[in-house]
């Protein structure tokens, strides 16, 4: 097995790395980059805990081979806050008690960002569709939906 050289942008930083191809983007982020905010859940595309943005689109990082991100841009939950300043979505999740155990939260935040980037004022239905690939076993979803819909000042990050 030959390693593959990839150049990619992760949370705004360019990285160039020699990687084993038989690794998922999820394993790469967590085990090689130390970005453990992206969660490992089902690993078969069903729970959404591993959701990241790939060129602005929500995807399951457990279903992507790491060489496939060569030349692409990745955003993980760690890339949402600006230093100490939380992203408005994160503030809103806190305000609405949308974080219980927190395992689904990174994926939820990323799916929510993908939604708000295109639809700044989503309906309840649009919001529910946007997070339909993210399972939460604690909250019952309503607080999450409210938190997303009542997020202030998005679009500047």
């Amino acid at each position, binding site marked *: *097995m030959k390693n593959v050289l990839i150049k990619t942008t992760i949370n705004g930083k360019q990285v160039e790395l020699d990687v084993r*191809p*038989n690794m998922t983007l999820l394993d790469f982020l967590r085990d090689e980059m130390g970005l453990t905010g992206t969660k490992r859940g089902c690993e078969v595309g069903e729970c959404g805990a591993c*959701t990241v943005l790939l060129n602005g*689109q*929500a995807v399951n990082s457990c279903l992507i081979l790491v*060489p*496939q991100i060569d030349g692409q841009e990745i955003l993980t939950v760690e890339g949402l806050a600006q230093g100490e300043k939380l992203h408005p979505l994160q503030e809103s999740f806190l305000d609405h008690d949308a974080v219980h155990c927190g395992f689904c939260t990174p994926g939820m935040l990323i799916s929510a960002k993908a939604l708000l980037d295109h639809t700044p004022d989503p309906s309840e239905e649009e919001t529910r569709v946007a997070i339909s*690939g993210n399972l939460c076993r604690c909250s019952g979803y309503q607080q999450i939906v409210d938190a997303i819909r009542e997020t202030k000042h998005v679009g500047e990050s």
Partner: protein
Amino acid sequence: MKPFDYHSPRSLPEACLLLAELGAEAKILAGGTDVLVEMRKPGSYSSKAVVDITRISSLKGIGESGDAILIGPLTTHAEIFHSRIVEQYAPLLKAAVAGIGSPQIRNRGTVGGNLMNAAACADTVPPLLALNATIKLLSSKGERSIALSDFFIKPYATVAQRDEILVEIRFPKLPANARSSFVKLGRRNALSIARLSVAAILVKSDAGVITDARIVTGAAFPKWQRVLEAEKVLIGQKPSRELFDAAGKKVSEALISFTGRRWSTEYKEPVIAVLVRRSLEACQ
């Protein structure tokens, strides 16, 4: 995951050469939503090489050519969903991809992967069969076009050779007076893999008489096909609930004559009849 060599050809000739060289060792990778799940299963096949075709830009996109719609196999379900062309000329395909997996799956999963994987529950198959689609397969030995109705052997088996790349999906535009629908029953709303689905197309004359009818069920028969017996019941008639019920009954009968009675028949027989009726009503 077992070790493998990774290749990402930039052009079709390069991809064909690679596949010819690698032979049975190679696995084609598109959106990966089926392949990655499969590769991780314990005891799964171990391909020594993965050929990632997603860098071949000519395999992406939706276009028109005269009366035909052309879809590149790498077009994602999300792209099909947002396509004006599909919305106008093949709305049942839009309806089908809208319900595939989740937003994350629709952003990665491709129509080509859906056809080539050939799962019994592949949601793009019933609409594309109803649209009388043909596909093009390419390998280093040449290109061939075949009707989608001749492509599937049974779930997870097609007539494609291992070194063949699906390069095009093509179907005639639906006429302006056609109405179409796709309905599916799943276990859960999002992420539901269809257990039963129906794609239907109806064309009516100005006098309201049905002149063309196409019905394809998903995940019901051991092989996908248009249910001609049921379509015949509709042609030359005016739509009514009784007529649609009769067509639904024909589909159920066809199902039983095909599969014989088995454990799931008790459930499928009445359900499929109702689903067919609903799909026809949705074509009004």
